[in-house]
């Protein structure tokens, strides 16, 4: 992580020095992480693409003022979380779309809408995992996804989410408890 942090810092400095291409490199470096994070938050590929791209747009505009108080990665994920929360707050129709996603999963159909975005996951267990993770309350899902799929420590997650270490610990515990219950047939 230290090596990556230093490389990120170099790119950030280059961007702040006027090299726009440095930001392109940061996007290439983190697009997959950002996309998969948004994918696990939203459950839909088209929405994940849009949300993660919005995150990069926000990052582009704010990067000049970035002072390296956190790693670029944590900072980017914080932006993504904020965009995700803004979206939840302001677009009520997303709830209706999530219901459609659940209905699709229940009928065992593919729940990724954009076929040109790569291979779809067809395994039954994969579908179940996605559905159960989507069913988690928002904060529990955020914490779980950041920890399990992005390898973040509790402190790093607290930084990204703007909450305390104890909040992270508690929500991760609750998420695990819930998943162990809802997925007991698969464990």
């Amino acid at each position: 992580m230290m090596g990556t942090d230093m490389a990120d810092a170099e790119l950030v400095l280059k961007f702040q020095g006027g090299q726009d291409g440095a930001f392109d490199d940061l996007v290439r470096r983190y697009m997959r992480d950002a996309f998969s994070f948004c994918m696990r938050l939203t459950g839909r590929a088209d929405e994940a693409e849009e949300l993660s791209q919005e995150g990069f747009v926000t990052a582009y505009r704010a990067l000049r003022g970035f002072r390296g108080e956190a790693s670029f990665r944590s900072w980017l994920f914080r932006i993504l979380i904020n965009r995700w929360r803004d979206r939840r707050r302001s677009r009520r129709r997303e709830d209706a779309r999530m219901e459609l996603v659940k209905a699709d999963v229940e009928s065992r159909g593919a729940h990724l809408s954009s076929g040109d975005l790569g291979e779809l996951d067809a395994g039954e267990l994969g579908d179940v995992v996605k559905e159960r993770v989507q069913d988690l309350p928002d904060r529990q899902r955020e914490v779980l996804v950041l920890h399990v799929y992005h390898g973040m420590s509790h402190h790093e997650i607290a930084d990204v989410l703007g909450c305390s270490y104890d909040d992270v610990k508690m929500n991760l515990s609750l998420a695990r408890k819930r998943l162990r219950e809802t997925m007991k047939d698969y464990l």
Partner: protein
Amino acid sequence: MMTCDTARGRLEELFDGELRGDEAATVQAHVDACAACAAEIASFRRLEEVLRGAPAGARPDGERYLARVKEKTRAQERSRWLAFVPVAAAALLMIGLAWVLASPPPPKGSDISALVDEYRAADAKRQAAIEEKLHAGGADTVAALKALVQSGAPQRQQVAAVILARYQDKSVTQWLVDYSNREPASQDVELLEIGSEPSDDELVGSAFDLLRSSKTREDGLRVLRKLHKGGLNRQAAYAMADRVKGLLASPSPRDQELGLEVLKTVGVKFPLPDLVDMLDVPELGDKAYEFLKQQTNKDYGRDKKAWADYFGRRL
């Protein structure tokens, strides 16, 4: 030796690698000796394996994804100043600025782009000097700045627009207003999101400046309403509450009235107890009283002590 009750509260942290040194060793020693706690750790491991085994599925298409990010960035940059420039242009038409113009030679075309780039990162003093040089450049300089607004890189578009907005020539500022009205709004951009951007506390400050003139007050209130409705980030929200507080705390009745008007029309969340102090201020006391009644559904008249007691506050 650690008991199960104590260990259970730390098992997940041990599993997650959050414990260090002696603490980790103590909990681990308990797990090694306790079948129940060891089983708990094993269940965490199993869950993690199953979760990690489910990939996200779709993947972003590299260069197409990057191209889309760039496209959205350009659209956002344009929309941001489109929302602000008509207000700035209107305000600056009304504000009389005394310019002391030296007579430097007009800058060349390539110099103009360089000056625009320099402006973005410059401090206020240098920005003023650049504006002075460009404003003295005549029709060619105006044409070059207009060209940057229409087709330059997003940062240059924004800066060129700001520089044009500050011209004292009404035809220039009118061109800017007409241009911004002519451009179709991008479907990717929601102006309501303005308040969500990290640097929009600057827009809050500028909007409050517009409130100072009776001719631009409505423009300022309109921008503040848009910002507030769009959802402010923490920095911008602090800036707004801070400005309102400053107005209400000002010894000037005009400022206090302005603060109340912002509270009323924009819907800013503000600590109501602070309004109690204004109840006995001539003219403004009525407005403060009406606002408190409306927000609390209580009526204690002009009795400051009663209001203070209601808020649990000491006078």
